[in-house]
């Protein structure tokens, strides 16, 4: 008898959870985790070893996921804001990463792209790439907010031209940074066994949390995305708010590009971060955010990004045939997107509620 009210409570709790936005990415993560646990429990094994420089490093699939998911999670922050405020997505982030990464290489390797030592402090290269990426973000933002071009069309320009611009920055060369400290940002800092990108990503999460806590950006972006006319009549400047979200995305791009460059000390402008824009948009969608703007949850988007990385790592792990990989990914994505559709969630929620009612009927009898 005592157990029954508990189940009732539990199912109503489940019903309310199902309606919460963050439910989707959490459910997806759990599904993937359970799948891996059943197929091969060693998936979750984490070992402490040493890398070639003798520093302690943790390794294992879980570490790989949170490590390689960093860039996508950082981009998901900016993409969520852009989606919320401008009711559309930026499809140029991959190209912008190529540009921003090329700027880092150009400054660290000098104009001839073959310097043996660093030509400038790393921080200078990073700040310069931030400025460049934010400038391109501003370009996109201006097209969207001032000229009122649809976001996808506006960012198509940079999507098309971006990698050529990146090629031009280093005169079609592919410079390599020959410096150990630079590799710390995409690898490990000596003595710390956790990959540095994880810390960079966490730092970004904290920054955006502080920004949302101590400014009204969240409220404004949502208001503008939901009803631009009302926002204007309440004293907001919708164009400026859309613009600023694109600049923030630019900053996210710069950070992601910096990690990418540091991972292998170089990038190839023609392939780096290819199709990452689609993954970033997918992360936003998996986070349960409406792609037509309005209310958003950044933490759900971030989780969505890690879901995608989890999926990628799982597929690598099971050595899915290379040409079949996109198909598998598509199937999983379809499942996740259907799961996140409001109508399905309503049904699920109702289902959990119905679990509760027979319990009541029973206790009456």
């Amino acid at each position: 008898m005592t157990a029954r009210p508990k189940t009732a409570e539990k199912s109503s709790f489940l019903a309310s959870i199902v309606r919460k936005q963050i439910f989707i990415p959490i459910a997806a993560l759990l599904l993937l985790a359970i799948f891996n646990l059943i197929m091969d429990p060693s998936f979750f094994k984490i070992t402490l070893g040493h890398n070639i420089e003798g520093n302690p490093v943790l390794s294992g699939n879980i570490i790989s996921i949170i490590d390689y998911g960093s860039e996508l999670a950082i981009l998901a922050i900016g993409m969520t804001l852009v989606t919320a405020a401008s009711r559309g997505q930026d499809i140029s982030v991959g190209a912008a990463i190529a540009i921003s990464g090329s700027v880092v290489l150009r400054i660290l390797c000098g104009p001839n792209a073959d310097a043996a030592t660093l030509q400038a402090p790393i921080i200078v290269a990073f700040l310069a790439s931030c400025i460049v990426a934010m400038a391109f973000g501003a370009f996109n933002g201006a097209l969207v907010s001032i000229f009122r071009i649809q976001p996808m069309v506006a960012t198509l320009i940079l999507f098309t031209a971006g990698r050529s611009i990146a090629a031009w920055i280093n005169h079609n060369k592919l410079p390599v940074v020959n410096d150990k400290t630079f590799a710390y940002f995409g690898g490990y800092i000596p003595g710390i066994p956790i990959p540095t990108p994880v810390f960079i990503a966490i730092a970004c999460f904290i920054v955006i949390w502080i920004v949302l806590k101590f400014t009204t950006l969240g409220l404004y972006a949502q208001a503008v995305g939901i009803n631009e006319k009302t926002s204007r009549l309440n004293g907001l400047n919708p164009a400026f708010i859309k613009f600023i979200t694109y600049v923030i995305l630019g900053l996210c791009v710069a950070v992601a590009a910096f990690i990418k460059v540091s991972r292998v000390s170089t990038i190839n402008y023609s392939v780096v971060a290819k199709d990452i824009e689609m993954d970033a948009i997918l992360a936003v969608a998996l986070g349960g955010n409406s792609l037509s703007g309005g209310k958003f949850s950044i933490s759900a988007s971030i989780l969505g990004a890690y879901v995608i990385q989890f999926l990628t790592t799982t597929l690598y792990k099971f050595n899915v045939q290379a040409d079949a990989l996109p198909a598998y990914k598509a199937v999983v994505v379809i499942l996740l997107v259907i799961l996140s559709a409001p109508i399905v969630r309503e049904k699920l929620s109702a289902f959990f509620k119905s679990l509760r009612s027979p319990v009541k009927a029973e206790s009456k009898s």
Partner: protein
Amino acid sequence: MQEKSLLEMRGIYKSFPGVKALRNVDFTLREGEIHALMGENGAGKSTLIKVLTGVHIKDSGDIFLKGHSGAVQIHSPQDAQNLGISTVYQEISLCPNLSVAENIFLGRGKHGIVNWRNMNRHAGKLLDSLGIAVKPTQQLASCSIAVQQMVAIARAVDMECSVLILDEPTSSLDESEVEKLFGLMRQLKERGVGIIFVTHFLDQVYEVCDRITVLRDGQLVGEYEIEKLPRVQLVSKMLGKELDDMADIKNDIPVFEEKDKGYVYEAEGLCSSEGIKPFNFNIRKGEVNGFTGLLGSGRSECVRAIFGADKVTGGRVKVNGKEVKINKPIDAMKNGIAYLPEDRKRDGIVGDLSVRDNIILALQVKKGFFKPFTKAEAIKFAEEYIKLLDIKTASVDTPIKSLSGGNQQKVILGRWLLTHPEYLILDEPTRGIDVGTKVDIQKLVLKLASEGMSITFISSETDEMLRTCSRLMVMRDRKLVGELTGDELTQNTIMNTIAGGGQE
């Protein structure tokens, strides 16, 4: 059917959940006649048109058409079209990226095969015969709105329509374009086409129409020949106040103390991009005044200009005697002005956001980007106004879009009261709200004024204005045509001033 009549609608009933939109309405259209369909918003004009064009299915009643024995059945727009009933809407429903000729023939080919030369030649002839100066090959989007409308009419004519419905065709046209359109209408009239003309512009009705049918509250008021119905009569019929029995309801109006504290707001020669003629306006501390006039007369545009909601194109503004610039809403807000817009859904609510966020929005914007309210503060404000205005909501976190219209309106009112404005503009705050809430809002307006707030009040209901306002600006055709105070504040004078021109 009577001789000469093209269309007769008899005893039409139509109701929507909770609303009886049409009750026993008759309507007759004769050959070669331009017939105005008049009535205030919600009178049932558009429902009647939609029943006729098959958008809505009538509950009961009969429709007769010339050449058809017995009542005809119209179940879809396609049916209506096949019976020769065509509609040209205010918003052009053609394809802007196709050519003029393509638009005329779009969706009418029998086999999906197009003979382009023939099509263009035929379209050229048709346009010539109607005197529409446009090339058949021109892209529709590159034509003016007026020409686009005429192309839509040409399409209807070519489909051999006998009944042509023009729904607010002139609202986005300038004077010369209106003249051209009227020319075309007269030409069609010569050909024996019956035209139903829906508009808010009284002058236009008297310029081009032969007959007027007036609806009010879903019921037929009557059908009149234009010469026999002076303007002031028309206005009184639309508003539902017979001139004779307009009782003096001044008693209801509480007397305001004259406050000699100068003007809170003054404007001189103010005008905006929405086409209102420059107007002068002012309001004192603790005063309640209002703009009146028919829909589309420019009363909303005036207050939007005051708030900077539309692009202000000229004029000088003083707040508390000091000259200020108000070009956008935030300027007005910083000068202590608040504005509750007419279209709640479009301009008022932020649908997906919670009641709490909707209430604090304006004050938050005023306070600044780097000073967000804490959640506790926001909840406190929200709860305060939910209580004060008796807003019915499940919680402060409920999305505003799931509230009823009246409660949404109160949330927005609460949003502006929270900013503690010196000058509050209310544009149709009581539209679509039940009677009890209406009275609440009127009382609140008077209470706020007695505490020293200046309020401008706009309502379609004249008696509501009379009950609250001590001064009325009267608008006609986007022009301020009169200012009424004291003894002038009666239904009669208001209507005479609104009707204007025709009396002189």
